[in-house]
Protein backbone atom coordinates (compact mmCIF):
# COMPACT_ATOMS: atom_id res chain seq x y z
CA UNK A 1 0.00 0.00 0.00
CA UNK A 2 1.47 3.37 -1.01
CA UNK A 3 1.36 6.53 1.07
CA UNK A 4 -1.47 7.86 -0.97
CA UNK A 5 -3.53 4.68 -0.64
CA UNK A 6 -3.47 4.39 3.14
CA UNK A 7 -6.87 4.55 4.71
CA UNK A 8 -7.04 7.72 6.76
CA UNK A 9 -8.44 7.70 10.31
CA UNK A 10 -11.08 10.17 9.22
CA UNK A 11 -12.25 7.83 6.48
CA UNK A 12 -12.64 5.10 9.06
CA UNK A 13 -14.52 7.46 11.32
CA UNK A 14 -16.81 8.40 8.44
CA UNK A 15 -17.98 4.79 8.17
CA UNK A 16 -18.84 4.58 11.88
CA UNK A 17 -21.49 6.46 13.85
CA UNK A 18 -20.33 10.11 13.95
CA UNK A 19 -18.68 10.65 17.35
CA UNK A 20 -18.41 14.44 17.04
CA UNK A 21 -15.52 16.68 16.26
CA UNK A 22 -14.31 16.99 19.83
CA UNK A 23 -13.92 13.23 20.17
CA UNK A 24 -12.33 13.03 16.76
CA UNK A 25 -9.74 15.61 17.73
CA UNK A 26 -9.02 13.82 20.99
CA UNK A 27 -8.58 10.48 19.24
CA UNK A 28 -6.16 11.72 16.62
CA UNK A 29 -3.11 11.06 18.76
CA UNK A 30 -3.99 7.38 19.10
CA UNK A 31 -4.96 7.11 15.42
CA UNK A 32 -1.84 8.97 14.34
CA UNK A 33 -0.96 8.60 10.66
CA UNK A 34 2.78 9.21 10.23
CA UNK A 35 4.10 11.77 7.77
CA UNK A 36 4.40 10.23 4.34
CA UNK A 37 7.47 10.68 2.20
CA UNK A 38 5.47 12.96 -0.11
CA UNK A 39 4.49 15.14 2.81
CA UNK A 40 8.09 15.30 3.99
CA UNK A 41 9.16 16.35 0.52
CA UNK A 42 6.42 18.96 0.36
CA UNK A 43 7.48 20.38 3.72
CA UNK A 44 11.18 20.52 3.13
CA UNK A 45 11.15 21.52 -0.54
CA UNK A 46 8.74 24.33 0.24
CA UNK A 47 10.77 25.52 3.20
CA UNK A 48 14.06 25.30 1.31
CA UNK A 49 12.57 27.22 -1.62
CA UNK A 50 11.37 29.86 0.84
CA UNK A 51 14.80 30.26 2.42
CA UNK A 52 16.52 30.44 -0.98
CA UNK A 53 14.03 32.98 -2.29
CA UNK A 54 14.43 34.97 0.91
CA UNK A 55 18.16 35.26 0.30
CA UNK A 56 17.57 36.09 -3.37
CA UNK A 57 14.96 38.76 -2.69
CA UNK A 58 17.02 40.39 0.03
CA UNK A 59 19.92 40.57 -2.38
CA UNK A 60 17.61 41.95 -5.05
CA UNK A 61 16.06 44.63 -2.83
CA UNK A 62 19.49 45.74 -1.63
CA UNK A 63 20.76 45.89 -5.21
CA UNK A 64 17.72 47.70 -6.60
CA UNK A 65 17.62 50.31 -3.85
Amino acid at each position, binding site marked *: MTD*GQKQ*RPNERIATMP*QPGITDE*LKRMLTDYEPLSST*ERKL*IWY*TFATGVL*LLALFILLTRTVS
Partner: protein
Amino acid sequence: MSNDATLTTPAVESLQQIIQPRISEDWLAVCIGTFIFAVSLGLLFGADLLGWSITTSVWIDSSKALAPASKPYAALPWIVSLIATYAFLLVVLLIAAKALGANLARFAAGFTAIFFLSYACWFLGSWAYIAATPDKRTAFKIPWSLSLTNESGYIIALIAGLIIGNFLPSIARSIKEAIRPELYIKTAIVILGGFLGIAALEQRHLATTVIFRGVCAIIEAYLIYWPIVYFISRRYFGFSREWAAPLASGISICGVSAAIATGGAIRARPIVPIMVSSLVVVFAVIELMVLPFAAQHFLSGQPLVAAAWMGLAVKTDGAAVAAGVITDSLIRAQALTGAGIAYQPGWILSVTTTVKVFIDIFIGVWAFILAWVWSAKIEPKPGEKVRLREIWERFPKFILGYVATFLIVLAIGIASPAIIPKVKAAMGQANVFRAIFFLLTFFAIGVLSNFRRLWQEGFAKLAAVYVLCLFGYIIWVGLLISWLFFHGVFPPIVKG
Protein backbone atom coordinates in the same frame (compact mmCIF):
# COMPACT_ATOMS: atom_id res chain seq x y z
CA MET B 1 -22.56 15.51 19.68
CA SER B 2 -22.75 14.77 15.99
CA ASN B 3 -20.99 16.74 13.31
CA ASP B 4 -24.29 18.16 12.21
CA ALA B 5 -25.03 19.29 15.71
CA THR B 6 -21.66 20.97 15.85
CA LEU B 7 -22.36 22.70 12.58
CA THR B 8 -25.53 24.29 13.83
CA THR B 9 -24.14 25.84 16.99
CA PRO B 10 -24.45 29.61 16.92
CA ALA B 11 -20.70 30.26 17.01
CA VAL B 12 -20.11 28.23 13.89
CA GLU B 13 -23.37 29.36 12.35
CA SER B 14 -22.25 32.94 12.56
CA LEU B 15 -19.02 31.98 10.87
CA GLN B 16 -20.83 30.11 8.14
CA GLN B 17 -22.74 33.29 7.56
CA ILE B 18 -19.55 35.08 6.60
CA ILE B 19 -18.10 32.13 4.76
CA GLN B 20 -20.87 30.77 2.54
CA PRO B 21 -21.68 33.86 0.42
CA ARG B 22 -17.99 34.56 -0.02
CA ILE B 23 -17.86 35.02 -3.79
CA SER B 24 -20.99 37.12 -3.84
CA GLU B 25 -19.62 39.27 -1.06
CA ASP B 26 -16.43 39.81 -3.04
CA TRP B 27 -18.28 41.05 -6.10
CA LEU B 28 -20.65 43.10 -3.98
CA ALA B 29 -17.70 44.74 -2.27
CA VAL B 30 -16.34 45.63 -5.72
CA CYS B 31 -19.72 47.11 -6.72
CA ILE B 32 -20.24 49.13 -3.53
CA GLY B 33 -16.64 50.31 -3.32
CA THR B 34 -16.39 51.37 -6.94
CA PHE B 35 -19.82 53.02 -6.75
CA ILE B 36 -18.72 55.22 -3.83
CA PHE B 37 -15.40 55.82 -5.55
CA ALA B 38 -17.14 56.83 -8.80
CA VAL B 39 -19.60 59.13 -7.03
CA SER B 40 -16.75 60.85 -5.20
CA LEU B 41 -15.10 61.56 -8.58
CA GLY B 42 -18.05 63.84 -9.33
CA LEU B 43 -15.83 66.55 -7.83
CA LEU B 44 -13.75 66.42 -11.02
CA PHE B 45 -16.81 67.63 -12.92
CA GLY B 46 -17.81 70.24 -10.35
CA ALA B 47 -20.46 68.05 -8.68
CA ASP B 48 -19.96 67.65 -4.93
CA LEU B 49 -22.06 64.51 -4.55
CA LEU B 50 -20.75 63.22 -1.22
CA GLY B 51 -19.96 66.44 0.61
CA TRP B 52 -23.00 66.02 2.87
CA SER B 53 -21.54 62.91 4.53
CA ILE B 54 -20.75 63.12 8.24
CA THR B 55 -17.28 63.59 9.67
CA THR B 56 -16.13 63.83 13.27
CA SER B 57 -13.29 66.07 14.42
CA VAL B 58 -11.36 65.67 17.64
CA TRP B 59 -13.50 67.53 20.16
CA ILE B 60 -13.59 69.01 23.60
CA ASP B 61 -16.94 70.71 22.97
CA SER B 62 -19.23 67.94 21.75
CA SER B 63 -21.53 70.36 19.93
CA LYS B 64 -18.69 71.17 17.48
CA ALA B 65 -17.57 67.60 16.84
CA LEU B 66 -19.83 66.55 13.99
CA ALA B 67 -20.10 68.31 10.63
CA PRO B 68 -20.58 67.61 6.92
CA ALA B 69 -17.45 66.62 5.00
CA SER B 70 -17.19 69.58 2.64
CA LYS B 71 -17.58 73.35 2.96
CA PRO B 72 -20.47 73.85 0.50
CA TYR B 73 -22.57 71.78 2.91
CA ALA B 74 -21.33 73.56 6.05
CA ALA B 75 -24.78 75.00 6.76
CA LEU B 76 -26.29 71.53 6.97
CA PRO B 77 -27.06 70.58 10.60
CA TRP B 78 -24.90 67.69 11.79
CA ILE B 79 -27.91 65.54 12.61
CA VAL B 80 -29.14 65.81 9.01
CA SER B 81 -25.67 64.94 7.76
CA LEU B 82 -25.51 61.92 10.10
CA ILE B 83 -28.94 60.64 9.10
CA ALA B 84 -28.22 61.22 5.40
CA THR B 85 -25.01 59.19 5.72
CA TYR B 86 -26.88 56.42 7.52
CA ALA B 87 -29.72 56.42 4.96
CA PHE B 88 -27.30 56.36 2.01
CA LEU B 89 -25.40 53.40 3.42
CA LEU B 90 -28.61 51.64 4.41
CA VAL B 91 -29.98 51.85 0.86
CA VAL B 92 -26.71 50.71 -0.71
CA LEU B 93 -26.29 47.85 1.74
CA LEU B 94 -29.92 46.77 1.50
CA ILE B 95 -29.37 46.21 -2.21
CA ALA B 96 -26.31 44.15 -1.32
CA ALA B 97 -28.26 42.27 1.37
CA LYS B 98 -30.95 41.43 -1.15
CA ALA B 99 -28.32 40.08 -3.52
CA LEU B 100 -26.98 37.95 -0.67
CA GLY B 101 -30.44 36.61 0.07
CA ALA B 102 -30.55 38.14 3.54
CA ASN B 103 -33.73 38.97 5.41
CA LEU B 104 -34.06 42.66 4.54
CA ALA B 105 -36.09 43.73 7.57
CA ARG B 106 -33.64 42.06 9.94
CA PHE B 107 -30.70 43.43 8.01
CA ALA B 108 -32.11 46.97 8.18
CA ALA B 109 -32.75 46.66 11.93
CA GLY B 110 -29.31 45.16 12.54
CA PHE B 111 -27.52 47.68 10.38
CA THR B 112 -29.31 50.57 12.09
CA ALA B 113 -28.10 49.34 15.48
CA ILE B 114 -24.59 48.66 14.25
CA PHE B 115 -24.25 51.98 12.46
CA PHE B 116 -25.34 54.16 15.37
CA LEU B 117 -23.53 52.12 18.04
CA SER B 118 -20.34 52.15 15.96
CA TYR B 119 -20.61 55.83 15.25
CA ALA B 120 -21.14 56.53 18.94
CA CYS B 121 -17.86 54.69 19.55
CA TRP B 122 -16.17 56.79 16.87
CA PHE B 123 -17.56 59.94 18.48
CA LEU B 124 -16.28 58.86 21.90
CA GLY B 125 -12.89 57.95 20.44
CA SER B 126 -12.61 61.48 19.05
CA TRP B 127 -12.83 63.05 22.52
CA ALA B 128 -9.72 65.22 22.91
CA TYR B 129 -8.65 63.52 26.16
CA ILE B 130 -8.46 60.24 24.24
CA ALA B 131 -7.55 61.37 20.74
CA ALA B 132 -5.54 64.61 20.85
CA THR B 133 -1.86 64.32 20.00
CA PRO B 134 0.52 66.39 22.17
CA ASP B 135 0.82 69.18 19.60
CA LYS B 136 -2.94 69.74 19.78
CA ARG B 137 -3.32 69.85 23.58
CA THR B 138 -2.69 73.59 23.78
CA ALA B 139 -5.40 74.27 21.23
CA PHE B 140 -7.85 72.19 23.25
CA LYS B 141 -6.60 73.68 26.56
CA ILE B 142 -6.13 70.26 28.14
CA PRO B 143 -3.12 69.22 30.26
CA TRP B 144 -2.99 65.61 29.09
CA SER B 145 -4.38 63.17 26.56
CA LEU B 146 -3.90 59.55 25.60
CA SER B 147 -2.68 60.61 22.12
CA LEU B 148 -4.51 57.74 20.47
CA THR B 149 -5.88 59.93 17.63
CA ASN B 150 -9.54 59.71 16.70
CA GLU B 151 -8.93 56.24 15.28
CA SER B 152 -9.13 54.99 18.87
CA GLY B 153 -12.82 54.92 17.99
CA TYR B 154 -12.07 51.67 16.15
CA ILE B 155 -10.75 50.07 19.34
CA ILE B 156 -13.78 51.27 21.27
CA ALA B 157 -16.06 49.81 18.57
CA LEU B 158 -14.19 46.50 18.79
CA ILE B 159 -14.59 46.43 22.58
CA ALA B 160 -18.28 47.31 22.27
CA GLY B 161 -18.69 44.47 19.77
CA LEU B 162 -16.84 42.05 22.05
CA ILE B 163 -19.10 42.97 24.96
CA ILE B 164 -22.20 42.36 22.87
CA GLY B 165 -20.85 39.15 21.34
CA ASN B 166 -19.76 37.67 24.66
CA PHE B 167 -22.13 39.05 27.28
CA LEU B 168 -25.29 40.08 25.44
CA PRO B 169 -26.06 37.12 23.17
CA SER B 170 -29.69 38.09 22.61
CA ILE B 171 -28.64 41.45 21.18
CA ALA B 172 -25.92 39.74 19.11
CA ARG B 173 -28.53 37.39 17.65
CA SER B 174 -30.91 40.25 16.89
CA ILE B 175 -28.31 42.11 14.80
CA LYS B 176 -26.50 39.13 13.28
CA GLU B 177 -28.03 39.61 9.81
CA ALA B 178 -25.96 42.78 9.45
CA ILE B 179 -22.78 41.38 11.04
CA ARG B 180 -20.79 41.03 7.84
CA PRO B 181 -17.19 42.07 8.52
CA GLU B 182 -15.90 40.54 5.29
CA LEU B 183 -18.28 42.61 3.16
CA TYR B 184 -17.47 45.79 5.07
CA ILE B 185 -13.71 45.40 5.03
CA LYS B 186 -13.54 44.41 1.37
CA THR B 187 -15.61 47.44 0.43
CA ALA B 188 -13.26 49.60 2.47
CA ILE B 189 -10.26 48.03 0.74
CA VAL B 190 -11.73 48.76 -2.71
CA ILE B 191 -12.12 52.43 -1.71
CA LEU B 192 -8.63 52.35 -0.21
CA GLY B 193 -7.19 51.59 -3.67
CA GLY B 194 -7.97 55.18 -4.66
CA PHE B 195 -6.06 56.48 -1.68
CA LEU B 196 -3.07 54.34 -2.59
CA GLY B 197 -3.33 55.79 -6.10
CA ILE B 198 -2.98 59.29 -4.68
CA ALA B 199 -0.07 58.17 -2.53
CA ALA B 200 1.60 56.59 -5.57
CA LEU B 201 1.17 59.80 -7.56
CA GLU B 202 2.79 61.85 -4.82
CA GLN B 203 5.54 59.37 -3.94
CA ARG B 204 6.05 57.17 -6.97
CA HIS B 205 9.40 55.75 -5.98
CA LEU B 206 8.25 54.91 -2.46
CA ALA B 207 5.02 53.34 -3.74
CA THR B 208 6.98 51.15 -6.16
CA THR B 209 9.34 50.14 -3.37
CA VAL B 210 6.43 49.23 -1.11
CA ILE B 211 4.71 47.13 -3.76
CA PHE B 212 7.90 45.28 -4.75
CA ARG B 213 8.92 44.56 -1.16
CA GLY B 214 5.36 43.59 -0.32
CA VAL B 215 5.44 40.91 -3.01
CA CYS B 216 8.78 39.61 -1.74
CA ALA B 217 7.59 39.46 1.84
CA ILE B 218 4.42 37.52 1.14
CA ILE B 219 6.08 34.86 -1.00
CA GLU B 220 8.28 34.21 1.98
CA ALA B 221 5.26 34.00 4.24
CA TYR B 222 3.76 31.21 2.18
CA LEU B 223 6.92 29.22 1.78
CA ILE B 224 8.38 29.66 5.24
CA TYR B 225 5.27 29.72 7.44
CA TRP B 226 3.14 27.00 5.89
CA PRO B 227 5.49 23.99 5.87
CA ILE B 228 6.60 24.50 9.46
CA VAL B 229 3.06 24.88 10.79
CA TYR B 230 1.96 21.84 8.80
CA PHE B 231 4.92 19.87 10.16
CA ILE B 232 4.22 20.88 13.76
CA SER B 233 0.50 20.08 13.42
CA ARG B 234 1.19 16.65 11.96
CA ARG B 235 4.32 15.59 13.82
CA TYR B 236 3.83 16.98 17.31
CA PHE B 237 0.04 17.34 17.62
CA GLY B 238 -0.92 14.27 15.62
CA PHE B 239 -3.44 15.99 13.37
CA SER B 240 -4.55 14.13 10.28
CA ARG B 241 -3.76 15.60 6.87
CA GLU B 242 -7.35 16.69 6.53
CA TRP B 243 -6.99 18.89 9.63
CA ALA B 244 -3.34 19.87 9.35
CA ALA B 245 -3.50 21.44 5.87
CA PRO B 246 -6.39 23.89 6.51
CA LEU B 247 -4.96 24.59 9.96
CA ALA B 248 -1.54 25.42 8.49
CA SER B 249 -3.14 27.69 5.89
CA GLY B 250 -5.40 29.35 8.45
CA ILE B 251 -2.52 30.08 10.81
CA SER B 252 0.07 30.89 8.16
CA ILE B 253 -1.61 32.72 5.37
CA CYS B 254 -4.82 34.62 5.56
CA GLY B 255 -7.06 33.01 8.08
CA VAL B 256 -10.57 32.28 7.00
CA SER B 257 -10.09 32.54 3.22
CA ALA B 258 -6.99 30.37 3.20
CA ALA B 259 -8.48 27.72 5.48
CA ILE B 260 -11.54 27.44 3.26
CA ALA B 261 -9.56 27.43 0.01
CA THR B 262 -7.19 24.77 1.35
CA GLY B 263 -10.08 22.72 2.73
CA GLY B 264 -11.63 22.76 -0.72
CA ALA B 265 -8.32 21.97 -2.41
CA ILE B 266 -7.69 18.83 -0.39
CA ARG B 267 -11.38 17.86 -0.30
CA ALA B 268 -11.68 18.19 3.47
CA ARG B 269 -15.12 17.97 5.08
CA PRO B 270 -16.69 21.45 5.37
CA ILE B 271 -16.64 21.29 9.16
CA VAL B 272 -12.81 21.29 9.16
CA PRO B 273 -12.18 24.74 7.63
CA ILE B 274 -15.17 26.09 9.54
CA MET B 275 -13.67 24.99 12.86
CA VAL B 276 -10.29 26.38 11.86
CA SER B 277 -11.91 29.63 10.76
CA SER B 278 -13.61 30.07 14.10
CA LEU B 279 -10.23 29.82 15.81
CA VAL B 280 -8.72 32.25 13.33
CA VAL B 281 -11.38 34.85 14.05
CA VAL B 282 -10.85 34.67 17.81
CA PHE B 283 -7.08 34.79 17.65
CA ALA B 284 -7.15 37.58 15.08
CA VAL B 285 -9.00 39.68 17.64
CA ILE B 286 -6.37 38.90 20.28
CA GLU B 287 -3.64 39.88 17.84
CA LEU B 288 -5.53 43.02 16.94
CA MET B 289 -5.69 44.02 20.59
CA VAL B 290 -2.01 43.33 21.27
CA LEU B 291 0.24 43.69 18.20
CA PRO B 292 -0.43 47.35 17.24
CA PHE B 293 0.49 48.43 20.77
CA ALA B 294 3.60 46.23 20.72
CA ALA B 295 4.50 47.80 17.37
CA GLN B 296 4.01 51.27 18.78
CA HIS B 297 6.27 50.46 21.72
CA PHE B 298 9.05 48.65 19.89
CA LEU B 299 8.86 49.73 16.25
CA SER B 300 7.94 53.40 16.24
CA GLY B 301 11.38 54.09 14.73
CA GLN B 302 10.60 51.73 11.81
CA PRO B 303 6.98 52.47 10.88
CA LEU B 304 6.86 50.43 7.70
CA VAL B 305 8.41 47.41 9.39
CA ALA B 306 5.52 47.63 11.85
CA ALA B 307 3.08 48.00 8.97
CA ALA B 308 4.32 44.95 7.08
CA TRP B 309 4.39 43.00 10.35
CA MET B 310 0.68 43.63 10.83
CA GLY B 311 0.00 42.37 7.31
CA LEU B 312 2.09 39.24 7.82
CA ALA B 313 1.14 38.38 11.39
CA VAL B 314 -2.52 39.32 11.86
CA LYS B 315 -4.90 36.87 10.23
CA THR B 316 -8.14 37.67 8.36
CA ASP B 317 -8.42 40.66 6.06
CA GLY B 318 -10.55 42.58 8.49
CA ALA B 319 -8.31 42.21 11.50
CA ALA B 320 -5.10 42.78 9.52
CA VAL B 321 -6.27 45.99 7.91
CA ALA B 322 -7.82 47.03 11.21
CA ALA B 323 -4.44 46.44 12.87
CA GLY B 324 -2.88 48.58 10.13
CA VAL B 325 -5.31 51.40 10.92
CA ILE B 326 -4.52 51.32 14.62
CA THR B 327 -0.78 50.97 14.03
CA ASP B 328 -0.88 53.91 11.63
CA SER B 329 -2.44 56.17 14.23
CA LEU B 330 -0.42 54.89 17.21
CA ILE B 331 2.97 55.09 15.51
CA ARG B 332 2.33 58.50 14.00
CA ALA B 333 1.29 59.78 17.42
CA GLN B 334 4.35 58.18 19.03
CA ALA B 335 6.72 59.58 16.38
CA LEU B 336 5.24 63.02 16.87
CA THR B 337 5.44 62.84 20.64
CA GLY B 338 8.85 61.20 20.93
CA ALA B 339 10.82 62.50 17.98
CA GLY B 340 8.76 65.39 16.68
CA ILE B 341 8.37 63.65 13.33
CA ALA B 342 5.00 64.03 11.60
CA TYR B 343 4.59 61.15 9.15
CA GLN B 344 1.97 61.43 6.45
CA PRO B 345 -1.11 59.51 7.53
CA GLY B 346 -2.12 56.42 5.61
CA TRP B 347 1.25 55.06 4.54
CA ILE B 348 1.47 52.52 7.33
CA LEU B 349 -2.07 51.39 6.54
CA SER B 350 -1.20 51.21 2.84
CA VAL B 351 1.77 48.92 3.47
CA THR B 352 -0.30 46.63 5.70
CA THR B 353 -3.04 46.52 3.08
CA THR B 354 -0.60 45.94 0.21
CA VAL B 355 1.00 43.00 2.01
CA LYS B 356 -2.42 41.57 2.87
CA VAL B 357 -3.74 42.02 -0.65
CA PHE B 358 -0.77 40.19 -2.12
CA ILE B 359 -1.27 37.40 0.39
CA ASP B 360 -4.89 37.17 -0.78
CA ILE B 361 -3.88 37.05 -4.43
CA PHE B 362 -1.66 34.05 -3.80
CA ILE B 363 -4.28 32.06 -1.90
CA GLY B 364 -5.68 30.75 -5.17
CA VAL B 365 -2.24 29.79 -6.44
CA TRP B 366 -1.36 28.04 -3.20
CA ALA B 367 -4.71 26.20 -3.11
CA PHE B 368 -4.05 25.05 -6.68
CA ILE B 369 -0.60 23.74 -5.76
CA LEU B 370 -1.96 21.88 -2.75
CA ALA B 371 -4.85 20.50 -4.79
CA TRP B 372 -2.36 19.15 -7.33
CA VAL B 373 -0.05 17.66 -4.67
CA TRP B 374 -3.00 16.03 -2.88
CA SER B 375 -4.70 14.66 -5.96
CA ALA B 376 -1.53 13.54 -7.73
CA LYS B 377 0.72 12.44 -4.88
CA ILE B 378 -0.88 12.20 -1.46
CA GLU B 379 -4.41 10.97 -2.05
CA PRO B 380 -4.67 10.15 -5.76
CA LYS B 381 -8.17 9.31 -7.01
CA PRO B 382 -8.74 7.80 -10.45
CA GLY B 383 -9.94 10.30 -13.04
CA GLU B 384 -9.60 13.34 -10.78
CA LYS B 385 -7.76 16.28 -12.34
CA VAL B 386 -6.99 19.72 -11.01
CA ARG B 387 -8.16 22.48 -13.31
CA LEU B 388 -6.24 25.72 -13.78
CA ARG B 389 -9.62 27.44 -13.57
CA GLU B 390 -9.60 26.74 -9.82
CA ILE B 391 -7.02 29.52 -9.41
CA TRP B 392 -9.55 31.98 -10.79
CA GLU B 393 -12.40 30.44 -8.81
CA ARG B 394 -10.47 30.94 -5.59
CA PHE B 395 -9.15 34.36 -6.52
CA PRO B 396 -10.50 36.99 -4.10
CA LYS B 397 -12.43 39.16 -6.55
CA PHE B 398 -12.58 42.27 -4.39
CA ILE B 399 -8.90 42.77 -5.17
CA LEU B 400 -9.95 43.60 -8.74
CA GLY B 401 -11.85 46.56 -7.32
CA TYR B 402 -8.85 47.60 -5.25
CA VAL B 403 -6.56 47.45 -8.29
CA ALA B 404 -9.12 49.23 -10.48
CA THR B 405 -9.54 52.23 -8.15
CA PHE B 406 -5.78 52.41 -7.73
CA LEU B 407 -5.14 52.37 -11.49
CA ILE B 408 -7.94 54.83 -12.31
CA VAL B 409 -6.57 57.41 -9.88
CA LEU B 410 -3.04 56.78 -11.11
CA ALA B 411 -4.10 57.12 -14.77
CA ILE B 412 -6.07 60.33 -14.14
CA GLY B 413 -3.16 61.83 -12.22
CA ILE B 414 -0.58 60.91 -14.87
CA ALA B 415 -2.79 62.11 -17.74
CA SER B 416 -3.73 65.42 -16.09
CA PRO B 417 -1.39 66.42 -13.25
CA ALA B 418 -3.29 69.69 -12.84
CA ILE B 419 -6.35 67.94 -11.45
CA ILE B 420 -4.50 65.89 -8.83
CA PRO B 421 -5.70 68.23 -6.03
CA LYS B 422 -9.30 67.62 -7.11
CA VAL B 423 -8.76 63.87 -7.22
CA LYS B 424 -7.23 64.11 -3.76
CA ALA B 425 -10.29 65.98 -2.50
CA ALA B 426 -12.55 63.36 -4.09
CA MET B 427 -10.63 60.57 -2.37
CA GLY B 428 -10.97 62.53 0.86
CA GLN B 429 -14.75 62.29 0.51
CA ALA B 430 -14.64 58.60 -0.37
CA ASN B 431 -12.40 58.21 2.66
CA VAL B 432 -15.30 59.25 4.93
CA PHE B 433 -17.11 56.09 3.86
CA ARG B 434 -13.96 54.00 4.05
CA ALA B 435 -13.60 55.05 7.69
CA ILE B 436 -17.23 54.12 8.36
CA PHE B 437 -16.77 50.71 6.72
CA PHE B 438 -13.68 50.18 8.87
CA LEU B 439 -15.72 51.10 11.91
CA LEU B 440 -18.46 48.64 10.99
CA THR B 441 -15.78 45.98 10.50
CA PHE B 442 -14.28 46.49 13.95
CA PHE B 443 -17.67 46.32 15.59
CA ALA B 444 -18.71 43.25 13.59
CA ILE B 445 -15.45 41.40 14.33
CA GLY B 446 -16.06 42.01 18.02
CA VAL B 447 -19.62 40.66 17.87
CA LEU B 448 -18.51 37.53 16.01
CA SER B 449 -15.81 36.68 18.51
CA ASN B 450 -17.70 34.57 21.01
CA PHE B 451 -14.83 33.39 23.19
CA ARG B 452 -16.92 31.46 25.72
CA ARG B 453 -18.79 29.37 23.18
CA LEU B 454 -15.63 28.45 21.34
CA TRP B 455 -14.02 27.11 24.49
CA GLN B 456 -17.20 25.21 25.32
CA GLU B 457 -16.89 23.39 22.01
CA GLY B 458 -13.55 21.87 22.96
CA PHE B 459 -11.11 23.66 20.77
CA ALA B 460 -8.23 23.22 23.18
CA LYS B 461 -6.08 21.10 20.92
CA LEU B 462 -6.59 23.26 17.85
CA ALA B 463 -5.98 26.31 19.97
CA ALA B 464 -2.76 24.82 21.33
CA VAL B 465 -1.33 24.48 17.82
CA TYR B 466 -2.53 27.95 17.01
CA VAL B 467 -0.96 29.52 20.09
CA LEU B 468 2.32 27.68 19.66
CA CYS B 469 2.70 28.41 15.95
CA LEU B 470 1.33 31.93 15.96
CA PHE B 471 3.02 33.30 19.04
CA GLY B 472 6.07 31.03 18.96
CA TYR B 473 6.93 31.20 15.28
CA ILE B 474 4.81 33.22 12.87
CA ILE B 475 4.83 36.50 14.72
CA TRP B 476 8.62 36.43 15.07
CA VAL B 477 9.38 35.23 11.56
CA GLY B 478 6.91 37.81 10.26
CA LEU B 479 8.77 40.46 12.23
CA LEU B 480 12.12 39.28 10.87
CA ILE B 481 10.88 39.25 7.27
CA SER B 482 9.26 42.65 7.70
CA TRP B 483 12.51 43.97 9.14
CA LEU B 484 14.58 42.52 6.31
CA PHE B 485 12.39 44.04 3.60
CA PHE B 486 11.18 47.30 5.14
CA HIS B 487 13.99 48.32 7.49
CA GLY B 488 15.14 51.83 6.57
CA VAL B 489 12.09 52.61 4.41
CA PHE B 490 10.08 55.48 5.88
CA PRO B 491 6.75 57.17 5.10
CA PRO B 492 6.93 60.72 3.75
CA ILE B 493 7.01 63.48 6.34
CA VAL B 494 4.26 66.10 6.44
CA LYS B 495 5.61 69.35 5.02
CA GLY B 496 5.44 72.53 7.06
